C-alpha cells in the first residue's frame, strides 16, 4: 500500500494541490499552519492510498480547515453579542420610559388637582359676590320702598 498526503487549498472556486507529503504529521501540521494564516478560504488534506494488488486508489479527506467557517463562527458570536446588547438597551429604555410616564402622570394629576381647587375657589368667590350683590340690591329696594 502506497500512501501520500495531498495538501490542497481552495481559492477562486476550486481546490488546487499545494504540496505533497508522504508523512501524515507533516501534512497535517502544514495544513493547520496554512489554515491559521488565513491566506486561503479553505485548506484540506486528502489521503491517497494506492493498493497495488487490487490496483485501486482510495481518497479520504483527513483534515479540513476553513477561514470561512472561522469567520462565520466569529460573525455569529458578534451577532449574538450585538443582539444581547440591544436587548439590554431596549429593556433599559423601556424602564426609563415607564418612569417618565409615571412622573408625567403624577405631574398631570397634580396640575388637574390645582386647577380644580382654583375653579372651586373662583366659583365660591363668584357665588359670594352674587349673593352680596343681591343683598345690596334688596337693601337699596328696601330703602326706596
Amino acid at each position, binding site marked *: 500500500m502506497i500512501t501520500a498526503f495531498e495538501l490542497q487549498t481552495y481559492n477562486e472556486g476550486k481546490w488546487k494541490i*499545494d504540496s505533497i*507529503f508522504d508523512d501524515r504529521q*507533516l501534512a497535517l501540521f502544514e495544513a493547520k499552519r496554512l489554515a491559521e494564516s488565513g491566506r486561503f478560504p479553505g485548506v484540506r488534506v486528502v489521503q491517497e492510498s494506492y493498493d497495488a494488488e487490487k490496483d485501486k486508489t482510495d481518497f479520504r479527506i483527513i483534515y479540513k480547515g476553513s477561514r470561512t467557517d472561522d469567520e462565520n463562527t466569529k460573525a455569529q458570536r458578534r451577532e449574538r453579542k450585538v443582539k444581547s446588547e440591544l436587548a439590554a438597551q431596549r429593556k433599559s429604555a423601556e424602564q426609563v420610559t415607564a418612569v417618565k410616564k409615571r412622573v408625567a402622570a403624577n405631574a398631570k394629576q397634580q396640575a388637574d388637582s390645582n386647577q380644580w381647587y382654583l375653579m372651586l375657589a373662583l366659583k365660591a368667590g363668584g357665588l359670594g359676590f352674587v349673593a352680596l350683590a343681591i343683598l345690596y340690591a334688596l337693601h337699596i329696594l328696601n330703602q326706596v320702598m
Partner: protein
Amino acid sequence: MERRLVLRVLNYWRHLAGEKEFPSIDEIDASDIPEIWPNCFLLDSSGNPDDPVLMDIGDQLQKDLGGDAKGKPISEVINESLLSAALGHYRQVATKKVPISLGGEYTKNDGTQVLYRSIILPLSGDGENIDKFFGAANSRLVSTS
C-alpha cells in the same frame, strides 16, 4: 525524522513566492536561512531537464558526498548518499509543479542504514515553467540496538 527542516524550507519558499505561484532562483539567498543552508541544494534543469546540474550544495550534503559536486549533473552524484536519495523525486516535482516531501531509508556503502527526509520545491524564472529546484534533506543513522 527531523520534520522541522522541511517545514522551515517550505515556509521560506512560501515567503519568497508571496502572491506568485513560484519564487525564482534569484530570490533564494543563503544568508536568509544560514541555519538550514548546509542541508540545502539548488538544481538547474534549464539546460537538460533529464539531468539537471547541481548549482549549489550545502556543506552538510557536500560532506556526506565526500567530494565537490557543485556544477556537476546529478547523474554523477554517487548513489547511496543523502543527496542521491533526496534527488529521487525531482521529476515528480517538475510534473506536479508543487513542493513534494518524501522520506525513506537507504544503505550506505559501508552498510550502515540511514533514515532521511527531503523536500524539493519548484522554482521558475518566468512564473510558469519550472526551470530550477530548491531542495533540502537531512538524515540520521538507524539505531541498531
